[in-house]
């Protein structure tokens, strides 16, 4: 009887071990084929002289896509490669600046919207529905909608600002080098604040109500209550939201590509890499740029995770 039970138990355990393998393998093989392997290949291509028209002829050239020194016959030396490419460094700067500014503003606005949505008031459902709309609009569509509103001749934004007396003459928002970056920021903040607000709202809704009751009885002002009670308590939720948005901002491609095409002031690392890969016939150079972008994002993620002490099981 006991032996029979033990036998059955070990058969079940064997079956379950087999099942784990069976259930996980399709997903793992898919991800290995479309993510891990392509990542490795991209990194390898960065060390070759591959061109889009003939990938198979690629030869290993070491770090020359990253940095190379040429000595001219005149004796002058020139540095080539990504690390000596001012266009690349401009793209790095654009990306980091964009991520830092957009995520900071979105965090502040998102917190304000979340605090509003956390109140009980008639019409709250309507506000939440309205807030979800920018999130639901596809990025390309929001880029086009705003491009139309920011049109230099027929745009409603110029019209509004001139009626209010804030502008004396129309601005070419997306084309002018001085305002293109601002235009990108405006559209991104419009589109991404809802996501931030929803994540922060989820954090707010987990807070115990009695703490605020006690604070109110003690005569603590709502303002101080927010900074002394709410903010420390929602810190974990806030941190996760910031990480998600920051990683998203660091890889931004579509908005920039459509709203401000071919503009050195807004070109990001992703745009730089994609265009070198597929438009400029510099496949190897683009691969090297992709690799550097990956490294930058990995480093920043690592930094956040160590600083924030995130645990996937705990969340």
């Amino acid at each position, binding site marked *: 009887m006991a032996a029979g039970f033990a036998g059955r138990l070990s058969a*079940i355990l064997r*079956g*379950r071990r087999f*099942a*784990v393998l*069976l*259930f*996980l393998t*399709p*997903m*793992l093989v*898919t*991800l290995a084929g*479309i*993510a891990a392997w*392509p*990542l*490795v*290949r991209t990194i390898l*291509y960065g060390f070759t002289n591959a061109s889009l028209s003939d990938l198979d002829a690629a030869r290993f050239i070491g770090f020359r896509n990253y940095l190379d020194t040429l000595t001219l016959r005149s004796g002058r030396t020139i540095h080539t490669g990504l690390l000596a490419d001012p266009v690349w460094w401009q793209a790095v700067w654009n990306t980091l600046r964009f991520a830092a500014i957009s995520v900071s503003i979105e965090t502040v606005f998102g917190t*304000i*919207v979340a605090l*509003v949505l956390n109140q009980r*008031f008639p019409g709250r459902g309507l*506000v939440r*529905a*309205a*807030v979800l*709309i*920018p999130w*639901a*609009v*596809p*990025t*390309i*569509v929001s880029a*086009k909608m705003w491009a*139309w509103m920011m049109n230099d001749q*027929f745009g409603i934004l110029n*019209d509004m600002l001139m009626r209010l007396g804030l502008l004396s003459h129309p601005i070419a928002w997306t084309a002018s080098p001085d305002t293109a970056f601002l235009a990108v920021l405006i559209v991104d903040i419009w589109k991404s604040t809802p996501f931030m607000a*929803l*994540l922060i709202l989820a954090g707010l809704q987990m807070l115990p109500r009695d703490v605020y009751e006690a604070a109110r009885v003690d005569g603590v002002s709502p303002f101080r209550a927010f900074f002394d009670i709410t903010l420390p308590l929602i810190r974990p939720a806030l941190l996760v939201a910031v990480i998600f948005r920051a*990683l998203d901002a*660091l*890889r931004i*491609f*579509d908005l920039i*590509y*459509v709203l401000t095409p071919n503009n050195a002031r807004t070109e990001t690392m*992703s745009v730089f*890499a*994609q265009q070198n*890969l597929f438009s400029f016939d510099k496949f190897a150079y683009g691969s090297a740029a*992709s690799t550097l*972008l*990956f490294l930058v*994002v*990995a480093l920043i993620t690592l930094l956040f995770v160590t600083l924030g002490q995130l645990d*996937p099981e705990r*969340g």
Partner: protein
Amino acid sequence: MRMRFLKTVGFYLLVAVIIVESVFPFYYAIITAFKSGNAIFHVDYWPTSFSLSNYAAVLTQGVFARNILNSLFVACVTVALSLILGTTAGYALARFRFGGRKLLLFAMLSVSMFPQVAVLAGLFEVIRALGLYNSLWSLVLSYLIFTLPFTVWVLTAFLRDMPKGLEEAAIMDGASPLRILVQIFLPLTTPAMVTTGLLAFITAWNEFLFALTFTSNDAQRTVPVAIALLSGATEFEVPWGNIMAASVIVTVPLVVLVLIFQRRIVSGLTAGAIKG
């Protein structure tokens, strides 16, 4: 008393600003799309005409109708594959004990968060080797990069939270793991599957980078790329009316979907980010 009145007014003012700011760009796209001819070059804050000429032009000229079908196909197949692969993997990760589970979950989260450009060159090579360049299947395959980790992540969290020992009796009765998944967990998981399926659909419907890179002619484009590349007779003549009509056509279904499933989507987003 007066203080409280002022506070209420201020609060509702803030509410009004949030609503107008959120809705206005889409509202403006809608009223622009209804204008015909030169009326479009006149700035109006309220609807002035209800002409359908832009919609007719977008749907009959060119291949935009085909682009919509392409997007539908890609998004639906991506959702189906993510759910099949995601449910089985999520079940294994949530209800079985084995080493490396945590590592696996972390690895998947990083896959969904890393920049897609990082795999672009290598993925292009894979897709060409499979003969899928300029095929809709190249998009299905590449979209799994972000829909699959997310689906696995959320479904794992959902299945893990179910009562311990739910399947114990079935295990001891000798039911196979597949049968346990289908008969016990699948019915209970339906809400989470609807949520993750919707979110996967939306991301696939909106994706731009892979769609731009892996398709090369107009008939194979998905809607975001088609809208981005919509151009007029000359380079300097941007068909704003058509672009706005196309934008409204692809956005209205999404907005309706999001508003109907509001609660589901919000809980899915936060489950993916916070609970995960």
